[in-house]
């Protein structure tokens, strides 16, 4: 992506006086070993990805060094592939997830004998068997290929994939036209496969899967979720000698009979088994299956067993190494839970179980998700903080958590993710405790916490320099002061301040200048934000991928300046008074990388249809919104009451 813009003169002017280590290393660059130079470049890139570009522009030698250094290519447009590969000959990974449309010709343009080892086409469409054939010919060493979401890829494409003999990792998720024939080709053609995903490949039957189990003995991970697998091939797959990870989500063909017929010959290597949403599995099947898989580390039985019986609990005790057991959506019988509780001292991840039992027995709990547990009292929530000091992830969304609970959580110094949205009883005081004691916090969700104000956010921003994501939506008391303090969190990439009417362009400009990695921004209903904020964003936030501008005071000028951010993929532009159809059309035409745009339905008739088709042909999807214009933001408690009323109804 850098290469495309590199030749633009204006940009070169802008970046040539770039200060810092880049210019310092330029003269003695030749004496510096590549390894050392690359270490330097790694550090520079970690701080600001854009810095590499300035470095490359410093001198011819820097340019060459940067070309040798880069391993990962993520072009914004598919037609840049040949140029990018020519510029970066040592690139090993080609990530095309930003190119919505990748025609066959673009893949065919890859120079033959390239050193690419990984290609990601999971979010692209427009290519077929011919493009894959060209890719297979050009990249003889390809080991990792992601073709997920290739809903149009069928057997012909699979036959071309089968020519990549060194392939070790392959994803064919949602390749729905794929049949046994294609899978057979892959199974025979790629004997080194280690990881394979066949999720949602509905065209597959036992024949193909059985052949796969026969031919690809090196498989360690095989995703068969939502396939039509039955007992016939299940037994063969369970005998794969190296299989470690086997997701079987939503496989209705797996039943107690299939699990019961697993015998002692079954492979002992299996460590992770996910049988959630397997409707036909009951506690009987689980009990018999557990006997033949003694080395399981993780077992997910969510929404599959109708009820957990004591005998099943006892059989789970026999898996001594079990670390993670998920029983979401399972009805517990009291004794069954007791059996689990007494045995699984090493279980680290439990959802939906009663708090007291957990806190007393699982003191080493790392992750706890308790969304919408309205029956849990604040006293019980305090127990969590007191007993589980190893917690890293905590989700207490929509609970009775108060400042006392947050104070108790202050003991969890490893906390990295804290979701306490819709907890109306917390205030700045509680957040101060968190800010002081949780320096590793990376993700905090304060959605609709009406009780907090700038002071609390400032405490968090100061105490958590690693913060990457913060959600302050509908915290109506928030002002530009919060944003200014958050602009010191240089790693911040996600900022959601939807419905904060007191935030203005001044605060946003601070964020744009401070948080250069910002990629997701939601400023819906921030009525004070106008074109000035957009100009700052277009100037500094080159990493921006996703933005929601609804109800802002942005006009065509702001929108067009915003559209110069070439990586922009996702825009929501609804109910903006200052936007005209012409301005919108121009912005859409300029943004080449758009993949999804939400617009008000009224614009549909006002924009030239061939322009819309033009944009769609580049891979953009339009979503036409027809919601009434509604300015006022109700207070959080009113909103909660309303939403609960809706639920009751």
């Amino acid at each position, binding site marked *: 992506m850098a290469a495309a813009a590199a030749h633009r003169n204006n940009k070169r002017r802008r970046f040539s006086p770039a200060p810092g280590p880049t210019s310092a290393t330029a003269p003695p660059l030749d004496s510096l070993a590549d390894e050392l130079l690359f270490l330097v470049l790694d550090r520079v890139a970690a701080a600001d990805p854009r810095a590499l570009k300035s470095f490359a522009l410093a001198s011819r030698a820097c340019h060459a060094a940067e070309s040798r250094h880069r391993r990962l290519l993520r072009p914004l447009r598919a037609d840049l592939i040949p140029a990018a590969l020519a510029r970066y000959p040592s690139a090993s990974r080609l990530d095309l997830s930003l190119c919505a449309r990748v025609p066959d010709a673009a893949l065919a343009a890859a120079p033959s004998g390239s050193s690419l080892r990984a290609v990601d086409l999971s979010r692209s469409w427009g290519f077929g068997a011919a493009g894959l054939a060209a890719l297979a010919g050009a990249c003889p060493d390809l080991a990792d290929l992601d073709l997920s979401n290739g809903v*149009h890829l069928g057997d012909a494409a699979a036959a071309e994939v089968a020519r990549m003999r060194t392939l070790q990792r392959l994803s064919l998720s949602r390749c729905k036209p794929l049949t046994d024939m294609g899978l057979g080709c892959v199974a025979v053609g790629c004997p080194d496969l280690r990881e394979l995903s066949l999720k949602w490949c509905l065209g597959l039957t036992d*024949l193909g899967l059985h052949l796969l189990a026969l031919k690809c003995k090196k498989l360690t991970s095989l995703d068969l979720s939502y396939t039509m697998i039955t007992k016939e091939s299940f037994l063969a797959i369970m005998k794969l000698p190296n299989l470690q990870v086997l997701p079987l989500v939503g496989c209705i063909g797996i039943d107690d009979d299939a699990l019961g017929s697993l015998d002692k010959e079954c492979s002992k290597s299996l460590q992770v088994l996910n049988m959630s949403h397997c409707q036909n599995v009951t506690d009987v099947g689980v009990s018999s299956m557990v006997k033949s898989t003694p080395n399981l580390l993780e077992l997910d039985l969510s929404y599959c067993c109708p009820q957990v019986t004591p005998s099943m609990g006892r059989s789970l005790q026999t898996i001594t190494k079990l670390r993670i057991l998920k029983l979401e959506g399972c009805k517990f019988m009291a004794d069954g839970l007791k059996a689990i509780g007494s045995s699984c001292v090493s279980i680290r991840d439990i959802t939906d179980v009663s708090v007291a039992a957990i806190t007393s027995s699982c003191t080493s709990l790392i992750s706890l998700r308790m969304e919408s547990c309205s029956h849990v009292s604040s006293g019980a929530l305090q127990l969590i903080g007191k007993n589980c000091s190893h917690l890293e992830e905590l989700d207490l969304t929509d609970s009775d958590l108060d400042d006392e609970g947050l104070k108790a959580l202050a003991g969890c110094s490893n906390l990295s993710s804290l979701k306490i949205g819709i907890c109306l009883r917390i205030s700045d005081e509680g957040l101060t405790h968190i800010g002081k004691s949780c320096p590793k916090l990376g993700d905090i969700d304060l959605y609709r916490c009406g009780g907090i104000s700038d002071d609390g956010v400032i405490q968090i921003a100061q105490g958590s320099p690693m913060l990457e994501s913060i959600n302050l939506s509908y915290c109506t008391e928030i002002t530009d002061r919060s944003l200014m303090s958050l602009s010191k969190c240089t790693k911040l990439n996600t900022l959601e301040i939807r419905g904060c009417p007191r935030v203005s362009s001044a605060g946003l400009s601070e964020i744009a200048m401070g948080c250069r990695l910002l990629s997701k921004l939601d400023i819906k209903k921030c009525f004070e934000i106008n074109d000035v904020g957009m100009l700052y964003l277009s100037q500094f936030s080159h990493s921006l991928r996703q933005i929601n501008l609804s109800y802002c005071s942005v006009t065509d000028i702001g929108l067009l300046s915003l559209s110069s951010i070439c990586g922009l993929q996702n825009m929501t532009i609804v109910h903006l008074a200052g936007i005209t159809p012409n301005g919108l059309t121009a912005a859409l035409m300029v943004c080449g990388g758009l993949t999804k745009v939400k617009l008000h339905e009224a614009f549909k008739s006002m924009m030239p249809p061939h322009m819309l088709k033009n944009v769609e042909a580049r891979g953009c999807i339009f979503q036409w919104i027809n919601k009434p214009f509604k300015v006022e933001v109700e207070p959080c408690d009113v909103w909660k009451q309303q939403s609960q009323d809706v639920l009751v109804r």
Partner: protein
Amino acid sequence: MEGGMSSLETAMKASSSVASGTARNADPDQQTVRSNSVEQFYFPRPGQSLPGIPPFFGPPSSSLYLANDNEAKVGNQFEPNPSQSTDWDPQAIVSNLTFLEQKIKQVKDVVQSISSRENQVAGGSCELAAKQQLITADLTSIIIQLITTAGSLLPSMKNPLSSNPAVRQLSNTLGSPMGFGMNANQRPSVDSKTDIPDIGKASGYEELINSLNTTQDERDDLIKCPNPCGGEGSEPTPMEDHDVKESDDGDHEGENLPPGSYVVLQLEKEEILAPHTHFCLICGKGFKRDANLRMHMRGHGDEYKTAAALAKPTKDSGSDHAPVTRYSCPFVGCKRNKEHKKFQPLKTILCVKNHYKRSHCDKSYTCSRCNTKKFSVIADLKTHEKHCGRDKWLCSCGTTFSRKDKLFGHVALFQGHTPALPMDDVKVSEASEQQQDSEPMNEISRSMGCFPCSSSDGISNLDMKMADDARGYYSPLSFDPCFGALDDFTRPGFDISEDPFSFLPSGCSYVQQNGDN
């Protein structure tokens, strides 16, 4: 053929003239034997293989040609009728002998006529062959009648037939044309000779007669027991069969008859390949089915139109007593040949026929569709033609399969073989993929096509007003993504210029641009 027919008819007349009183018994049987021999024992009858109770003394057949029925019509002939078999009727024997005398004379005449004619013209070989067949048949019938007549004199005949090995062996010899043809010695087959010298005939005949009276040892020497169970201490035959086709031929693995519990018959090659197996005794017309013959017989007179004559011969009576019969393939060295160490008999005549054609005959029927597969049995061809061309499951080695699981079994078995997509399928899917890809492109190009100049410069594609507007907005800002983007979407449009749907008005200019690009 006419000569043969005429002689046959004279024989018929002669027999019918004799056939009165007690001789009536002989008549149907004689005809039976004769007709059977015309068919060359195609359907060997238990009556021949086991003439312990001479068919002579069996109750008269319900109709003349009912006895001709070949569907194992053991029935009445096998029913032991003590009153008749024990009573020795000299009168009957006299009449029999008289009849035989006449018969021999007729045969002699025929042979003489052949030899005289042969001197004159080379003659049609087929006619000659027909006559030879006739002679052979006649001789056979004569011999059998002689034996049965003589056999009725033997005291041992009153015993249960199995208790007399001599008779049984003899009967086997007679039942098997090969045994007779070879005459139990290595004498050349009668069939293979163009001329049958009277002496040869006589000697064979005498030998047979003698064999009845000679001692047990001599008989053993003379007549090789065709039955594998013949008491030479043969081991039980292992019932293993690897040939799928062979098992098709009707040998049922599960049957596993102990050797000796069944009688083995062996037909000659000619008999097996004979197109017709049922012959009209009056006009000599051949039929494949007995029912057709019966229908045909109606034309020969009202006596054949009776319900009894038209009825399907019953096979119920005495079927319990019928010995189990199995068949041997005449091809020496074949596993189905009785000489084979691991001999596996064939169950029915049809099995013999199919087996012989499949294994020892040329495959003369070629599939008209694929022109590669050949069959010797027409039914096999028809079965194949039902599936020919429908082998859509293809392996990379070129083998095709009619079933997907068979293909996957094959692929699983052989290293490096991979399922192959049919070529037309690949093309179709590619085309559809491409078409699917190009569809929005086409629409775009179509919508673009309304503009006078659709050059590769994307911006001029825009409506002029729009372009102006856009320029107005672009000017303070960076332009490049716009150009790039338009490049991006216009280029694939050219990639698919060979698409059949490229009905763009400016098609030629596109080609030009393509070259420019």
